[in-house]
């Protein structure tokens, strides 16, 4: 009888799971949940200091499927970032793993998406991106491709919002893109994102098996045979001080999905410098023009101060400060009143 593998906290992988998924069988979101479970287990993360944050939508339901020992907050549509901001400011030791969708972050929540990035709140911001609204039966979201057709919503006339480009434009300090079917890359990116001090945007193309499965969508299983390029390996090394990401030169590789279809992924090669913002924009624009999806860590800037620093938070989380530190003494009120105009 083999012993169940445990991590540094003495926990099994089972301990990092939660309820069974209620999403459609084969949904890309489920594999992302599984990668979150794997990564947090392998990294021996303390679940009691993780908060799982989400908005509304299929993707936002997924925190119910992983990390049962973490507090979770299923907020309102498009406004997960603000709730996360308050929670992390209140307790800076909380590590936020946030899950959003393309409608949640690209449509109703585009403002909060960009503003939380601008503030550089420490959080992992995962977008499970499939280009459609699932729970309301298949309407296009803002990340749907122009010219795309779906069974129910018809033809999309409008250009797509590329959330990685939006993130970069908002001065993101960590921008990555992956594909839900690429377990290894998703895991590597999640590890890097968890180690990043700042907002780590992880846009994961996650096909909708029910509403977005036509060949014309770059977010479908069918797009890919002819656009396919090899992806590199992301080696992840966490050191005391900094995050190092290794890239191998990109080569093309088709990714075959469980239903036999393909998706085009272009993994960034050695020629891409992830600390060069202009080059990050260029890579994303070029991929957009060719209707390809580049994957990997597109941009990283570990130097910009986070909101914890710009707000001058003390080492002790605000919620742990005793009453004596948050309610000034009576003499202070006297001082304040002396500064007022009094009779």
């Amino acid at each position, binding site marked *: 009888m083999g012993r169940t593998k445990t991590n540094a906290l003495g926990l099994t992988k089972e301990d990092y799971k939660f309820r069974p998924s209620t999403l459609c069988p084969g949904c890309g979101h489920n594999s992302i949940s599984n990668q979150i479970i794997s990564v947090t287990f392998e990294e021996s993360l303390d679940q009691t200091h993780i908060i799982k944050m989400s908005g509304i939508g299929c993707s936002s339901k997924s925190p119910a499927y992983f990390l049962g020992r973490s507090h979770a907050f299923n907020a309102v549509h498009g406004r997960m970032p603000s709730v996360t901001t308050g929670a992390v400011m209140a307790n800076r030791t909380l590590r936020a793993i946030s899950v959003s969708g393309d409608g949640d972050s690209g449509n109703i929540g585009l*403002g909060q998406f960009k503003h939380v990035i601008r503030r550089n709140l420490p959080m992992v911001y995962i977008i499970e991106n499939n280009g459609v609204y699932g729970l309301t039966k298949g309407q296009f979201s803002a990340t749907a491709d122009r010219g795309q057709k779906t069974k129910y919503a018809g033809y999309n006339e409008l250009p797509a919002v590329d959330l990685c480009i939006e993130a970069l434009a908002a001065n993101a300090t960590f921008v990555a893109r992956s594909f839900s079917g690429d377990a290894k890359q998703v895991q590597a990116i999640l590890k890097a994102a968890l180690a990043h001090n700042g907002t780590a945007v992880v846009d994961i193309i996650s096909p909708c098996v029910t509403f977005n499965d036509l060949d014309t969508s770059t977010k479908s299983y069918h797009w890919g045979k002819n656009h396919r390029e090899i992806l590199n390996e992301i080696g992840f090394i966490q050191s005391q001080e900094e995050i190092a990401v290794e890239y191998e030169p990109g080569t093309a590789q088709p990714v075959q999905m469980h239903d036999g279809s393909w998706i085009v992924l272009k993994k960034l090669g050695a020629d891409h410098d992830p600390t060069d913002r202009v080059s990050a924009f260029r890579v994303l624009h070029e991929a957009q023009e060719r209707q390809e999806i580049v994957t990997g860590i597109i941009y990283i800037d570990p130097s910009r101060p986070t909101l914890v620093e710009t707000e001058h938070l003390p080492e002790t989380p605000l919620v742990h400060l005793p009453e004596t530190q948050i309610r000034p003494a009576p003499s202070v009120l006297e001082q304040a009143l002396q500064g007022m105009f009094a009779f």
Partner: protein
Amino acid sequence: MTVVDLQRVPSSAPQTNGKVVNNFSFVVATANGTGSQTSNNTLIRTLFKMGIPVNGKNLFPSNIKGEPTWYYMRLSKDGYLAHRPVAEVLVAFNERTFAQDVAKLPPGGVLIYPIDDTDARAPKWNVQTIKRDDIYIYRMPVDTLMNQLPEKPNPSIREYLANMVYVGVMAYLFNIDMDGIRDALSYHFGGKEKLINLNFGLVQMSYDWAAENLKKEDPYVCEPMEGTFPEGTLLTDGNSAGGLGAVFGGVQFVSWYPITPSSSLAESAQEYLGKYRVNEDGSHTYSVIQAEDELAAIGMAIGAGWAGARAMTGTSGPGISLMAEFVGLAYYAEIPVVIWDVQRVGPSTGLPTRTSQGDLLFAYTLGHGDTHHIVLLPKDPTECFEFGWRAFDYAEQFQTPVFVLSDLDIGMNMHITERFQYPDQPMNRGKVLDAKALSEFIEKHGKWGRYWDVDGDGIPYRTLPGTDHPMAAYFTRGTGHDEFAAYSEDAEVFERNLTRIARKFQTVRKSLPAPVLHSMDGASIGIISYGSNDPAIEETRDYLAAQDIKSDYLRIKALPLHADVEAFIQRFDRVYVVENNFDGQMTQIIRMELPHLAARLKKVCRLNGLPLDADWITEQIVKAEKES
């Protein structure tokens, strides 16, 4: 010229020697953005220091520069501090409104206006001739006086500085204390000698000019009064007070989005936090974030409240509209958060710089579905300070959003108000289980559920994220949930949860501040009101009593309604509910909650952007009493 009819001077007080002492109103008409606020604040501060009961109402436009603004200062030897829409003394400093302002002066009133040079009679501007032969007129050669300044002022402050001329002229004409003016300027400029001297120099020069060139003819004078207010009485605004109150409530997180008239609340909190809540190493015991909109402002505050911080946001009506969905979530997921609504006039953008009590019903039931919230109703800056700290206790004790409904009049105008008292009880952080307490809870009850009511008061126990216990986590959601925070669409579970929350609000009802009763012997009618109407109600009751209508007055301080409200209404056949909104929203709430007493309630409500005044309220009640 002048025909003086003292009978027409609207004073209830007997006159002595043809003088009207401390019982009249000034109005200063200017264009906004010209800096008259410094002059007006200086005047009201000086009058206050003279011991004269005085109010100041700034009627300002939604504009940066050039639009008409009026500053009313009512002096009342009888201590009436409500707004009075009539002013006997007009300082007409605005070319555009000159004609209408002069036309509004009552007979026997006083007009002061600027002229080009000492000999001119016409205003310095080209305005149509206005014929009034029943008012006193004084003219000020503002430019001439400005040109006599020893140092030529910087052109950028010339227009602003010119306002000091009327301060000096008024000081002479109405006997306003010059030392007091100097003190008020010193306070305003934070003791900066150069600015004080520049401004006071012009005030003095204008005073001297007036003394030499103007002959006092009108009857209005200010005289110092003794014993009117206890030492330590403050002259301040509700937003400053609320911000300071929050600091003493231990606020840890403030998120807000700029909107008139609430911006200065968050700014005041930020200023005081910066003074009193910074550690020696420079770190802050708080975080203040200016959000991208009100949607984010409330979301952040809720996130912080959920994580265990004392969190608040401040806004006004349009922001409350945007916050509706999130507040519904906080109500149903039971998250403490404090929301200040400094009310302005709606619907829609309405009159963004005028006062109202129009959000009462909306705030009370904000959110879709069946929601109701704790609403605190401060009457003045002192109560803004008190609710500023107390609101956090209620929010955490009851794990629910708490609204503090102030308004533009309380929030932005300066009021004579009682000195603030330090919190009289330690913070009530509510039912929060840390790891140890959670273990004990589970040992005692066998399990723990976020929404499981073991005490019977409807209030469950919560854990905070970051609690080092394997059973501490729960899933916070706006969707249907059971006692253990698990998703549920079960009909029985859903009903049970709403019933438990309703039970919580029965506990709330008993715990909020009781209404304040003001009695009078032989009262035949009841008056119910709340918030900033208070001084107008007190004055109204005197006027009614003079007409033999005696009244008891109940001031409601919080929603949901306290049991005393029902008992009060039961004592009278007719209870007048006085409020500053169009529909009579408090009347509607009382009628909803106490339907058996609905017929006894009479609405006395209006909405025109101004604070309620006693003459109008008196007129309404007298008329209604005659009809009844």
